[in-house]
C-alpha cells in the first residue's frame, strides 16, 4: 500500500498522473478506499451497499494500464452512486421499502458514461426515501451522519453521497436534485456539489420524483473534480426527451459581474455567522476586481410555495407506477384495488405519503386552479426574474443554507421547518438553471466546527462560469 497517498487531498487529475507513473494501481487505490469504508460506514451510514465487484473492475483497469492504454477521463476513480440511479444487476431501492428487493435491469445513461470513462463504482449511497427530504432521516436504512459532528444530519436527500466524499469513502459521487438535494448536503459536509442546468444531464435510469425538476449531478472534493465528472455525464441522450445538446454559455462581460439578491440577504433569514461568511465571499470578489451588484429577484420569496405545489403534484403522478404488479413490494388484497392499497400502504414511508396525499389534494377538482395553475405561473415569473438578472450579471452569490447542519431529530417531526431549510435552493431548480455549492469557511456549534457552503447560481448552460468562479473561491477560502 502506498503511504504517501492522502485521500483527503487526492484529486482526480493527480490520481491519473500517479496511474501513468505506475505509482499506484487501480486495485490498490480501491483497496485503500474500501478499508476506509469498512472502518467508517458503521458510524456514518453513508453506503447502503458496497459492491463486491469493485475489485474486478479495478483489475480490468490495471490490465489496460499495463498494456499501455492512455488513462481515460475517470480511469480507476472510485465513485459512489446515490441509490436512485440504476446500475444493471444491482439493487436500486431509493431507500424505500417498496423497492427493497428491486434489481435494476439496465444501466442509467450516466452510469454507462461513467463506465466508458473508466470509473469504478464503489457502492450505493444512502438517501431520503425517493429523494424526499433534506436530512436522510427519511431513509428506510436510517440516517447518514455528518462526519463533522455525528450528532448532526448530513443533509439530504443525497446525504450518503456527500458523506462518502467528505469522509474519503469515495473520491467523488453522483447525487440527484429536485430541490437542493445535492447542494444542501454538500454544504453541510464541506464538499462541492453541482445541480446542473435542467436537461444538461440525462435522467434515463434515475428513479423519478418530480420529472420537470429532477437532475443528476456530481459531488466532489474540489470544483475541478466536479467539473470533470460533469463533463463525463452531460450531453444529449435519445432516451431522455428533455435532454439537450450542451451549448456552453460563457461570461458576458470582460470583467466578471456578481449579483447579490437583495430579497435573500435582508432581514433575519440566516444565522449571523453564516451571513458573515457570505459577506466575506462578496468582499473577496470585490478585492479581486470583480464587479459586485445588488440585484432583485422579486418573485423568489414565493419559490418554496411554488415548489411544494409542483413537486407533490408530480410526485403523486410518478408514484402511481408502484402498484405491486410489475415490480417492487406486492401485498395481496381481495381484489386488484385492495392490493394497491395494501402494497402502497405498507411500502411508502411518512414523507412519501405526505407528499402523495398533498399532491392529490392540489390537483383535485376545485383546487387545481388555485394551486397547480397558479404555481406554474409563478414558476414562470421566477424563471423570468433570473433571466432578467442574467442580462446584467454573470453569476449570483447566495448562501446554500440559512444555517449549518442541524441536529438529528431536530426537524423530522415538523415537515414545514424541514422544507424551509431549502429556501435559497429551490429557486434555481424551478428556473432550471445551474447552481454550485462550494465549501467556504466554518462556524462553531456546541464546540464543533461545521462547514458552510457558498452558492453560485448561473444562467442556463453557464456551468463553466460557475466552475471558474468556484475555483477562485476555493483558492481564496
Amino acid at each position, binding site marked *: 500500500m502506498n503511504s504517501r497517498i492522502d485521500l483527503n487531498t487526492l484529486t482526480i487529475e493527480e490520481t491519473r498522473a500517479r496511474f501513468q507513473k505506475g505509482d499506484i494501481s487501480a486495485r490498490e487505490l480501491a483497496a485503500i478506499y474500501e478499508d476506509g469504508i469498512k472502518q467508517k460506514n458503521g458510524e456514518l451510514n453513508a453506503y447502503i451497499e458496497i459492491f463486491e465487484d469493485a475489485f474486478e473492475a479495478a483489475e480490468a483497469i490495471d490490465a489496460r494500464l499495463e498494456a499501455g492504454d492512455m488513462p481515460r477521463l475517470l480511469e480507476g476513480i472510485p465513485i459512489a452512486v446515490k441509490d436512485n440511479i440504476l446500475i*444493471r444487476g444491482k439493487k436500486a431501492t431509493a431507500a424505500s421499502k417498496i423497492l427493497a428487493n*428491486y*434489481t435494476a*435491469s*439496465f444501466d442509467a445513461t450516466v452510469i454507462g458514461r461513467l463506465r466508458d470513462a473508466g470509473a469504478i463504482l464503489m457502492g450505493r449511497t444512502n438517501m431520503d426515501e425517493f429523494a424526499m427530504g433534506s436530512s436522510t432521516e427519511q431513509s428506510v436504512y436510517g440516517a447518514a451522519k455528518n462526519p463533522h459532528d455525528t450528532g448532526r444530519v448530513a443533509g439530504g436527500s443525497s446525504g450518503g453521497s456527500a458523506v462518502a466524499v467528505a469522509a474519503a469513502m469515495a473520491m467523488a459521487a453522483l447525487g440527484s436534485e429536485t430541490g437542493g438535494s445535492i447542494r444542501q448536503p454538500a454544504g453541510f459536509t464541506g464538499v462541492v456539489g453541482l445541480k446542473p442546468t*435542467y*436537461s444538461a444531464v440525462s435522467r434515463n435510469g434515475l428513479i423519478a420524483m418530480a420529472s*420537470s425538476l429532477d437532475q443528476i449531478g456530481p459531488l466532489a472534493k474540489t470544483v475541478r473534480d466536479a467539473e470533470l465528472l460533469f463533463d463525463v455525464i452531460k450531453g444529449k441522450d*435519445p432516451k431522455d*426527451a*428533455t435532454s*439537450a445538446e450542451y451549448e456552453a454559455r460563457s461570461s458576458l462581460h470582460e470583467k466578471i459581474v456578481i449579483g447579490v439578491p437583495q430579497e435573500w440577504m435582508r432581514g433575519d433569514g440566516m444565522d449571523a455567522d453564516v451571513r458573515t461568511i457570505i459577506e466575506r465571499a462578496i468582499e473577496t470578489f470585490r478585492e479581486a476586481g470583480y464587479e459586485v451588484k445588488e440585484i432583485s429577484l422579486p*418573485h423568489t420569496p*414565493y419559490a*418554496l*410555495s*411554488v415548489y*411544494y*405545489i409542483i413537486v407533490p403534484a408530480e410526485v*403523486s403522478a410518478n*408514484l402511481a407506477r408502484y402498484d405491486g*404488479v*410489475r*415490480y*417492487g413490494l406486492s401485498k395481496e388484497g381481495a*381484489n*386488484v*384495488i385492495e*392490493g*394497491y*392499497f395494501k402494497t*402502497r*400502504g*405498507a411500502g*411508502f414511508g411518512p414523507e412519501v*405519503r*405526505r407528499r*402523495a*396525499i*398533498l*399532491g*392529490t*389534494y392540489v390537483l*383535485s377538482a376545485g383546487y387545481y386552479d388555485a*394551486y397547480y*395553475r*397558479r404555481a*406554474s*405561473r*409563478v*414558476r*414562470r*415569473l421566477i*424563471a423570468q426574474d433570473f433571466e432578467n438578472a442574467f442580462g446584467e450579471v454573470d453569476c449570483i452569490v447566495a448562501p446554500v443554507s440559512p444555517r449549518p447542519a442541524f441536529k438529528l431529530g431536530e426537524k423530522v417531526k415538523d*415537515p*414545514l421547518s424541514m*422544507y424551509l431549510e431549502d429556501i435559497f435552493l429551490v429557486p434555481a431548480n*424551478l*428556473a*432550471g438553471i445551474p447552481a454550485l455549492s462550494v465549501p467556504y469557511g466554518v462556524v462553531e456549534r456546541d464546540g464543533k466546527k461545521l462547514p458552510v457552503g457558498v452558492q453560485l447560481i448561473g444562467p442556463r448552460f453557464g456551468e463553466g462560469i460557475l466552475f471558474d468562479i468556484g475555483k477562485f473561491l476555493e483558492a481564496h477560502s
Partner: protein
Amino acid sequence: MITREDVKKMADLARIELDASEGAALAGDLERILDYIEKLKEVNTKGVEGAATTALVNEFRLDAARSFENSAALLDAAPHTEHGLVSVKKIIEK
C-alpha cells in the same frame, strides 16, 4: 381547514392505506403546509402563461416499439408471471 375526512378522501384517491392514527397528524401537517403556500395569492399572475417545464426543446420520436435485450430481468422483477407474461388479478367480474 383540512379535516381527517379530507385526508381519508385524498388517500383513497392516491390508493394508500393509512393507519388509524395517521389521519389526524397528516391533516395537521397538510393544514400547516397549505397555510404557508397561501401566500402565493399575493402574486399577480394575470396574463402569465404557466411553465410546466424549463426544457426548451420539444422532442419528437417515432412511436415505434423497440426490443429490450434484458426482458428476462423484467419478468424476474414481477411478483406473478405465467408463460412469460406478468399475471394480474381479474378486474372485470361477470
